């Protein structure tokens, strides 16, 4: 893997501080928040940081609680599988968080869909809460002395800071890991267009009439070829020399395995093309391991009847989580769950270049999509007897 640092794993149960802004909900994770000072010859890519446990280069998923669950972030070169909830609302939200984080960190994006046009997903990206995200606008010039009136009325006490630009320099955005987003607003077009985005919309590549007659599923191989071509052309695959600065490619694949990809895995109990998606995931992981990219794949697992196949798919991805929303199910009326929108299950966490995995402490996790945060926490702890509260101290 890329960039190994020899670190001794710390077994201290040190208290956890959250990175960036403090949030009310924290996890007890068995690691420190200590950030190793990078004086060595590591390449520094904005929006990434080395992991404390095993030295992998991590990127943020866009959801800080999910970063904690996955051991600090998503390692570059790995795949995160999200098993969709029944109506594909929250899994789509996490995919949008992932892509929005890529825009804010100036990474490149690759979005592949079969159902909606990739542009629709890109237009729905949530707006980042900007204190210190560099916005590519020209710096506000100080107002000419001809019109002092309006600018001075703006601030009465802190008037000396009026003319400073509201945006800090680019240095701040690269040192920050994990941002917060406001779901009620969409990202402004100028921020979004500053990021380079590659699109793959299946109906543009495969005419369905030809697909219906073929014995194999052609869509996945077309997707893999397109992704390989983008990685090679844009220089993510380390084949090009280090002349230009490196960047990360974030790959978002929406609803793989559904019938719209031409795959009958979700339709039949014993699918004929059961190996199409597993072969694709194998090829995808090989492609990602040899390049500076990270992938998030959503899958409508509630339609797959073959549990063995689902197990295969989980094994072939590095990280795997499953979402189950309460909407429409009888759990909606359960008083324990009334504050939450659904349950989250961590199916798999990888161990990359080390022997131990960082599994989350609690198995029962519930999530809630608030306007400014996607929180994941354990409902038992939250409902809080004093006994639990004392233990947290």
């Amino acid at each position, binding site marked *: 893997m890329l960039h190994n640092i020899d670190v001794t794993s710390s077994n201290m149960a040190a208290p956890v501080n959250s990175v960036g802004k403090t949030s009310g909900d924290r996890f007890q994770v068995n690691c420190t928040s200590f950030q190793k000072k990078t004086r060595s010859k590591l390449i520094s890519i904005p929006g990434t940081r080395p992991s404390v446990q095993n030295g992998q280069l991590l990127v943020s998923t866009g959801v800080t609680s999910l970063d904690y669950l996955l051991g600090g972030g998503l390692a570059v070169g790995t795949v995160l599988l999200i098993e969709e909830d029944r109506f594909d609302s929250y899994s789509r939200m996490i995919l949008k968080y992932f892509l929005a984080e890529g825009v804010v960190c100036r990474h490149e994006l690759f979005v592949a869909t079969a159902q909606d046009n990739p542009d629709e997903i890109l237009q729905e990206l949530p707006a980042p809460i900007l204190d210190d995200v560099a916005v590519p606008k020209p710096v506000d010039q100080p107002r000419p002395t001809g019109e002092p009136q309006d600018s001075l009325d703006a601030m009465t006490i802190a008037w000396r800071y009026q003319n400073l630009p509201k945006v800090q320099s680019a240095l701040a955005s690269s040192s920050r890991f994990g941002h917060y987003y406001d779901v009620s607003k969409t990202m402004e077009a100028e921020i979004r267009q500053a990021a380079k985005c590659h699109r793959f919309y299946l109906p543009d590549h495969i005419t369905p009439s030809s697909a219906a007659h073929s014995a194999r599923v052609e869509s996945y191989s077309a997707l893999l070829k397109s992704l390989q071509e983008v990685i090679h052309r844009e220089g993510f695959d380390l084949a090009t020399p280090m002349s230009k600065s490196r960047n990360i490619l974030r790959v978002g694949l929406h609803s793989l395995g559904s*019938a*719209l990809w031409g795959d009958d895995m979700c339709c039949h109990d014993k699918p004929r093309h059961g190996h199409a998606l597993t072969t694709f995931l194998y090829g995808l992981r090989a492609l990602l391991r040899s390049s500076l990219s990270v992938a998030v794949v959503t899958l409508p697992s509630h339609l797959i009847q073959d549990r063995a196949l689902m197990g295969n798919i989980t094994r072939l991805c590095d990280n795997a989580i499953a979402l189950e929303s309460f909407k429409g199910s009888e759990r909606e009326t359960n008083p324990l769950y009334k504050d939450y929108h659904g349950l989250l299950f961590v199916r798999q966490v990888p161990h990359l270049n080390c022997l131990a995995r960082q599994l989350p402490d609690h198995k029962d996790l519930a999530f809630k999509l608030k306007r400014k945060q996607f929180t994941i926490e354990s409902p038992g702890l939250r409902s809080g007897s004093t006994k639990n509260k004392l233990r947290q101290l």
Partner: protein
Amino acid sequence: MYILALKNSYNLFLNIFSVAREEVVHVLCFDVSEEELKVGLKPSDTQRLHIHNAYSDPLGWTGHPNFTAQQFILEDLANLVKQTSQPKPAVLVIDSLSWILRHKTPPAVCQTLQQLRKGGAVRAVIGLLHTDMHQRGTVGSVCHLATSLISVAPGVRGKEAVARVTKRSKSGKVMQDEEIFCIAEDFTVTILSKASHAEHKTNSTEEEQADPTANLTFNLRLSDSELEAKQKLTLPFVFSKEKKTALLHPGPGSGRILYEPDANDDYDQEDPDDDLDV
């Protein structure tokens, strides 16, 4: 796109929904014959319906089929709908999707439905699906595409039926409802009552925001006159406007501070001596 999912092959006439509005409706008949479908409908209604007979020869065994199952692809359907040459896009009613799913693979059917939805040829697609005729995965895949899903099952008492409606909006919000209805002889649908699920939701009362400044022995609020007085207060270091502008826009000759953060600023509070090993 609406999909009616029926359990136990409950017979329901689809035309009731579309005929009520003044729209052009194309009906693809696979399950029942044209005459049987028109039984009981008023002639004024049947004029607006364009029924395409796919019942008599759906697989093209005779030399001249009207519409076959293999023709359930975008081009042929678009041509079919254009035949009436109306300015507004029409509504397409498919009776039934189950029939088509037996002769075409579910992925192909799903892709055609998705293309119909994305293209502008039809405004809405209403499809009938008999859920007990297919595997769960097939039913799930087709229903996953639908923006509205109505599941109909026979009710407790004689002529009643229970309908569960699920609607998905573009923004991702999902609405679910359950209703009991019955159909009269002249095909009017009367909704009898909403099922008991709806009552659960009213139980969740909103908590009132506790106002911390309410029952105190001292007063934390400001009256209007006090607010005015507060705003009129002159603060120290508030200069006149001329002095402010002079300070804000420094003329030539005043220095600027340029600072690049250096190694001494890299101060980690948890590791002040910079000697901890990871």
